[in-house]
């Protein structure tokens, strides 16, 4: 098991290097000179040249890459030339918003998707199963910007139960914080539960055909025990993958949802950085988000081993 973890951790290194390369070079391909952007319209060629020299922009791109990477390895991701804040400070400010949104959205999506999947699999082919499979397919085709606007219309505008936009930090007022996050996380959960349900439902239907389920029935176990103890665990590998990918994706913020609901998360930070050409912030945030995604996948791999002892013992 220790060997398994160590080997997976080693795999992370080349992936992270690739992420840093892509981040840096794609950002440096953006049109326009950073020095001009910083100095604005009034810049004289002398000022620009001085700033370029100062920032190392006159150096070849691979030397700049290694300089950037070297600083990062020492914990220095750079500093925004607009706000003066370091990348790490900015991310630390925004990350809790995105993480809270991500966690609530996942809880919602799993809370809707998993029970429905189990009921559908247990009664596969029945009217409830067919109805839910159809509903899931329909929900899968609804874009988040549409469901967000509909939710705002019903719950904020018509019923006035929840605020439409805005944010209060959790530490300031936990209840208000949750009220602001209900609609955004519901929007994301509505987009994600159908895939969770479809995947778990079909895996579970396959599992229920297995010999060991027939034996579990022949042993006289209760239907609930067969579903939850015998069938759910071996059916949840794909579910874990999907959830892991969803979480990894949402670490980078939910750009659309954060924008619609005016949540100060990573997604809006990225959009802001792109619109204002804040290259340092953009590079740093994309790298951190990429690293988060890769690490999330590593955790998913570890969860496989927890779920299936054959992977744990290196048999599969």
């Amino acid at each position, binding site marked *: 098991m220790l060997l398994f973890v160590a080997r997976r951790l080693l795999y992370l290194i080349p992936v992270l290097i690739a992420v840093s390369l892509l981040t840096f070079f794609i950002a440096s391909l953006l049109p326009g000179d950073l020095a001009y952007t910083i100095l604005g319209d009034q810049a004289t060629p002398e000022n620009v040249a001085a700033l370029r020299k100062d920032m190392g922009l006159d150096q070849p791109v691979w030397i700049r890459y290694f300089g950037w990477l070297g600083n990062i390895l020492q914990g220095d991701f750079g500093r925004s030339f607009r706000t003066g804040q370091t990348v790490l400070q900015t991310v630390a400010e925004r990350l809790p918003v995105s993480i809270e949104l991500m966690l609530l959205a996942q809880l919602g999506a799993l809370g809707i998707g998993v029970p429905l999947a189990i009921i559908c699999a247990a009664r596969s082919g029945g009217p409830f199963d067919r109805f839910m499979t159809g509903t899931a397919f329909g929900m899968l085709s609804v874009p988040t910007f549409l469901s967000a606007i509909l939710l705002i219309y019903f719950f904020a505008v018509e019923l006035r139960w929840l605020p439409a936009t805005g944010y209060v930090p959790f530490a300031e007022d936990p209840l208000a914080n949750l009220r602001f996050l209900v609609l955004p996380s519901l929007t994301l959960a509505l987009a994600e539960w159908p895939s969770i349900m479809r995947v778990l439902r079909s895996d579970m239907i396959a599992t229920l055909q297995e010999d*060991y389920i027939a*034996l579990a*029935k022949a*042993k*006289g176990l209760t239907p609930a025990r067969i579903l939850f103890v015998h069938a759910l*665990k071996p059916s949840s590998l794909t579910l874990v993958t999907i959830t892991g990918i969803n979480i990894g994706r949402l670490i980078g913020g939910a750009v659309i949802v954060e924008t619609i609901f005016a949540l100060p998360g990573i997604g809006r930070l990225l959009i802001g950085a792109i619109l204002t050409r804040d290259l340092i912030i953009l590079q740093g945030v994309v790298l951190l988000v990429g690293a988060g995604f890769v690490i999330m996948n590593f955790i998913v791999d570890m969860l496989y081993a927890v779920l*299936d*002892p*054959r992977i744990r*013992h290196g048999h599969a």
Partner: protein
Amino acid sequence: MNGNILLSVEDVVVDLPTPRGNLRAVDHVDLTVGAGRTLGVVGESGCGKTMLSRAVLQLLPKKAKLSGRVMFDGQDLLQLPPEKLRKLRGRSLAVVFQDPMTSLNPVLTIGTQLIETLQEHLELDDAAATRRSVELLAAVGIPAPEQRLAQYPHQLSGGMRQRVAIAIALSCEPKLLIADEPTTALDVTIQAQILDLLAREQRRRHMAMIIITHDLGVVAGRTDEVAVMYAGRVVERAPTPALFKKMRMPYTEALLAALPKLDAAPHTPLPAISGRPPDPTRPLRGCSFSPRCRYAVARCQNEKPALEAAETKAHQFACFHPIEDHADANA
């Protein structure tokens, strides 16, 4: 048949809808098993023997249609409400499946799979159930049973897994054990061990047993009665000694002839049964074995022989030209 009848299968029919039409997997089968007795059900693959066992256990596929009566211990299993059926399964009616590689849950420990059965049916606390599980594993010949409880099925060999499956089946002292090809998936060297283990535990626990197999060699000497199945029907049924002394149905004879013999000269060709079993979605008008039977005459193709007793009441067969008659004709 002496003693009380524990299981009686009466006129059971199993139909499976398939894209090619209705498949009659079990065709009007009658069987009985007395308490503490052993019945062997023999036939080649696809003859309906597994479907028959699944019908008894009520584990048929959802789409299957089942009719007839399955009387077990005085109750008709087909009429039993699900909750009562559940309390019976694993408690007084247990099963060992063919393939121990797939019949144990890969993500649960051996201990969990044993203990859950015990605690479902018997009032046992964790300590007592664990103790009982260790005893059961020891009884089926598993070395170091305490350590096995924490292991997963993939950490055990096929033979050991089948022993675990047998321990699970025996755990609540069932009245009837159905062993569906219990040795087919195992190495030849293990097969006799598993069969001997089943026979020993059966005697010790006074339970009845149904051994389902395609191998007449497995039922010889290990069963009280044998039923030979072909194309969903029982075609010959007799007390084991009587059957091996004088088989009447040509199919039974062909099945026995198809077994390799140790004392045969090298390179003796095996007399395989030519042809294939009839397509179960297109039932024949006459005897379903007639296309492959070397004794078949015109009548066999047009009329279905009934399962009838001959000189002794216990020996029944479904054939117009049972084997002895041919011998007479040749003499």
